[in-house]
């Protein structure tokens, strides 16, 4: 049987991949996908905690509710974020973060 630490390790690895992707990649859509990976890594650890801490013989459903809310908010966030990317592309004709330097001092 897989233990709690196995799940937490896998979740941490997924978070690391997301973090590395945000730092390495320069395409803003890929960066956005990697943010989704990091959110999902948090979801995995929440569900693992929910399963491994039973309340009165059932999994702790408060943890799964939080995951439900995270998934819903993430869906809204993706829609708004992609709309911003579209608006950005219209204004600048690029989504490469190296070329978006208006805020650079």
């Amino acid at each position, binding site marked *: *049987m897989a233990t709690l630490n196995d799940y937490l390790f896998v979740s*941490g690895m997924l978070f690391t991949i997301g973090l590395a992707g945000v730092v390495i990649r320069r395409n803003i859509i890929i960066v956005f996908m990697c943010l989704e990976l990091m959110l999902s890594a948090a979801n995995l650890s929440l569900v693992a905690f929910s399963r491994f801490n039973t309340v009165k013989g059932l999994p702790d459903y408060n943890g799964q509710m939080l995951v439900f809310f995270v998934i819903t908010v993430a869906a809204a966030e993706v829609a708004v974020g992609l709309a911003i990317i579209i608006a950005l592309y219209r204004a600048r004709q690029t989504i490469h973060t190296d070329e978006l330097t208006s805020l650079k001092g």
Partner: protein
Amino acid sequence: MPSPLFWLFSLIMLIGGCAVIAFRNPVSSALSVVACFAGLAGLFVGLNAYFIGIIQILVYTGAVMVLFLFIIMLLDLKDEQKRAKSLAPLLAGVGLSIAFIIQLIGVLSKSPDKIAPALNAETLGAAAADFTKGGKIATALTDGRLPDVHLIGHTLFTQYNLPFQILGVLLLVATVGVVVLSKKTEEKKTEDRR
């Protein structure tokens, strides 16, 4: 969840995650995210969170990634492949990951490990006492099944009713916001020039 299945789904998830960063073509990256989330949904099902596993597939791999693919194809990015890879962000990313993994191993080696508490007919039957007798939840629990969706619905509409309604307002705001953001602003620009 038996260990071989756990490692299989974890492997699918992590390889999918690595492929997201490795591929140069954004469409391939988006499809790797789909593979990654499918593995993740498998892990959720293995943790007896059937409802979360299903909405992970429906919402993420179904709706969100289709939206991503749609935007990638709409923008039609051809110059991505020609770009030279710079070394500095690669080194920063790898260094950051290694530091994070070392930290993770350090924390996990000290934290107490836990084995999953049993979810069998005995424990589920004992939990049935808290629910209305003859109801769907109590019946399923006494039969030794875990009525996951019913329990989530029960928690959602009793303990989390207000956050749930606020979430509905949030989705409405997001929908209106997206429409406003993606509207063309040609007229406004000409007005500004005058």
